């Protein structure tokens, strides 16, 4: 078996989460104008500041153009052909899980995210978001005992409006970019986390996003605030059914870390990626940014990106605090006709700030995988340091890998290091493993997993094994 045939067929991988839940939903009609923005705000019974936030964002968005600088090719999106609000019809206030529609609980069960008391995950609190709304958050009570707030964004806007008003849009301004502006105007739900001063969050927090409709966009908004000396580890997971149309996902995530606080944000992204001919799949245009506001604060992004037809995503850190630390660890796997343009932005403002970027891109099939990273050293960033390492692995001879590093330095006493490498899975490595009795498929996944080791080591324990399995699954059929 040659590695040429070995690689030809990276496909036939069944997407496990491609089912659709039949549930009655409340949808508004397609299209977007100011009245739709007002309608969303009204449906969510929002205070006035929120309504103004949305309207301002909408006005800005109308003046903006879709960014075209990414190495991505797709037909123009029709923003009037998208449903901007879709929610499963159920009781407005769900006092307990018993009131959640069993069909929804079953959906999350099937996704491996049981929400009911008996079956829920050991030490992980979960906020489950279905299309536009959060349907349940587990362990709320236990977290509240520590003063930790973990709830849907909708609830936060009502119950913690002062925090939301203060921080929402403070890291990603409403006019930051086209997709962030759109999100700011129409976002429907998402997760909110607040860790008070000095508290180490006692469990992993996790949000699970599920897109169910074939014509609804998902625009969720996440805000995490860690006060002085607080710390939290947060994980985001996502899946969607297999449709042969494309769904738009334009989320915004904002993190704020004050003095000595640390936030670890991990993503295992497994949106439906489209079929082997590139039909269907999620268009993922996401803005994620953390503000290291306080001294010695630390924000760490870890992402394992395996899904989406298109990924446009640059989780970054604004390192404002003196001696603050930003980290970005990424594995992006593309297959078939997937396209990913992803990387990070490390903006060093404070003196002595440090950042580390480790990016591993794996391209297979006919896919294209670009790393795009910005390292900016501001005039005050005396003694700041960055180290970036971007490695690409190509499987087969039809895939593409690109690296676009952008380095800007306004501070002569800042250090920026960038290393990049590209490799193939070599026939000799494959043969070596085979000659020790290992199946070619297992061998490829072993090689890929070894390639990603530095990043997997950054994931919370429970999810590192998951990520390994997910990659193996995505690579199934990569060898014939």
């Amino acid at each position, binding site marked *: 078996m040659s590695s040429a045939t070995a690689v030809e067929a990276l496909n036939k991988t069944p997407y496990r989460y491609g089912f659709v839940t039949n549930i009655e939903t409340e949808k508004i009609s397609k299209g977007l104008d100011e009245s739709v923005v007002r309608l969303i705000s009204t449906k969510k019974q929002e205070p006035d500041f929120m309504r103004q936030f949305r309207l301002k964002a909408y006005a800005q968005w109308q003046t903006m153009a879709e960014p075209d600088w990414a190495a991505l090719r797709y037909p123009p999106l029709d923003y009037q052909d998208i449903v901007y609000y879709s929610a499963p019809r159920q009781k407005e206030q769900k006092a307990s899980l018993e009131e959640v529609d069993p069909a929804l609980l079953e959906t999350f069960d099937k996704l491996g995210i049981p929400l009911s008391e008996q079956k829920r995950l050991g030490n992980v609190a979960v906020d489950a978001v279905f299309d536009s709304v959060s349907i349940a958050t587990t362990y709320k009570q236990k977290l509240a005992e520590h003063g930790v707030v973990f709830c849907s964004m909708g609830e936060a806007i009502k119950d913690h409006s002062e925090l939301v008003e203060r921080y929402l849009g403070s890291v990603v301004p409403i006019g930051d970019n086209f997709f962030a502006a759109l999100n700011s105007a129409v976002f429907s739900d998402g997760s909110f986390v607040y860790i008070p001063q000095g508290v180490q969050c006692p469990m992993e927090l996790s949000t699970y996003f599920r897109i169910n409709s074939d014509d609804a966009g998902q625009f969720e908004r996440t805000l995490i605030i860690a006060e002085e000396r607080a710390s939290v580890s947060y994980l985001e997971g996502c899946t969607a059914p297999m449709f042969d149309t494309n769904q738009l996902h334009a989320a915004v995530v904002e993190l704020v870390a004050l003095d000595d606080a640390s936030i670890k944000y991990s993503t295992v992204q497994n949106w439906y990626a489209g079929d082997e001919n590139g039909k269907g799949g999620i268009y993922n245009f996401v803005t994620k940014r953390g503000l290291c506001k306080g001294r010695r604060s630390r924000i760490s992004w870890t992402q394992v990106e395996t899904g989406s037809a298109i990924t446009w995503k640059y989780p970054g850190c604004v390192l404002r605090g003196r001696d603050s630390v930003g980290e970005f660890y990424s594995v992006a796997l593309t297959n078939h006709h997937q396209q990913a343009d992803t990387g990070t932005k490390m903006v060093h403002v404070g003196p002595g700030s440090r950042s580390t970027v480790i990016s591993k891109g794996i391209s297979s099939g006919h896919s294209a995988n670009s790393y795009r990273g910005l390292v900016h050293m501001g005039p005050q960033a005396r003694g700041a340091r960055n180290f970036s390492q971007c490695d690409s692995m190509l499987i087969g001879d039809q895939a593409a890998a690109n690296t676009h590093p952008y380095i800007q330095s306004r501070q002569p006493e800042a250090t920026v290091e960038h290393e990049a490498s590209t490799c193939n899975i070599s026939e000799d490595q494959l043969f*070596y493993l085979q000659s020790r009795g290992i199946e070619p498929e297992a061998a490829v996944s072993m090689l890929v997993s*070894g390639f*990603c080791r530095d990043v997997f080591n950054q994931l919370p324990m429970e999810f590192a094994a998951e990520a390994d399995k997910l990659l193996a699954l995505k690579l199934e059929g990569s060898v014939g």
Partner: protein
Amino acid sequence: MTSTETTPSREAPIQPGDVLLSIENLRACVEENEILRGVSLQIRAGEIHALMGRNGSGKSTLSKVIAGHPAYTVTAGSIHYRGQDLLAFSPEERARSGVFLGFQYPVEIPGVSNLEFLRVSCNARRQHRGQEELDTFAFEDHVRETMAIVQMDPAFLERSVNEGFSGGEKKRNEVLQMALLEPLVAILDETDSGLDIDALRIVANGVKRLALPTTATLLITHYQRLLDAITPDFVHVMAEGRILRTGDKDLAMALEERGYDWIDETDGSDVRQP
């Protein structure tokens, strides 16, 4: 090695003297170049064979064709392993059924722990033999015991496969794999080259311990010094893709004295097949 003996092997038992590997008039090429031009060789249980010859004579190619390397195409002839057509098997099937190749240049595999690699490999062979697979703990005990054979430091288990290993460490790791896989036919491609005297002794002792009356060994080597430690039953000399001459250990000694030119000058009339 108690852990390996918990379940008996399902592999059909072998008697000393059984034919394990039978190669008939084998021809093989890489791209357009014919490297093997009619190799015939029979190897029986309990035998140790040495294969010698100049660089480029086809020794390594023969070993890779036996193991199933995809870069080589067999154009004529056959290889039978325990009566079965070995060429119909994939490389991993060959390995699981007991054919082992110790590489001349073992490959580095960054990020993959040696321990995990050895465990997956060992379990693939065990599964084939109908033995129960070893979990992480049982395997770790087993591999630590086995490492003593090649006097390897258990710290090597935590490192990535062959990554940053010295030449000698890589070769010892190969013999360790051989010990774990318990092959019926072991082919060692220049396992001795690049080793200092101590490392050579350790490797040679390991190989000797693993050569049983029910297994066979094919040593590919340039040097008499390995054959001083392991006495071969047969010595073959390859040139231009054929076995030109076969003898016993005296042939290797004569080669050491007179060089390969001496073979070229003889007409090969004293070729003797085992």
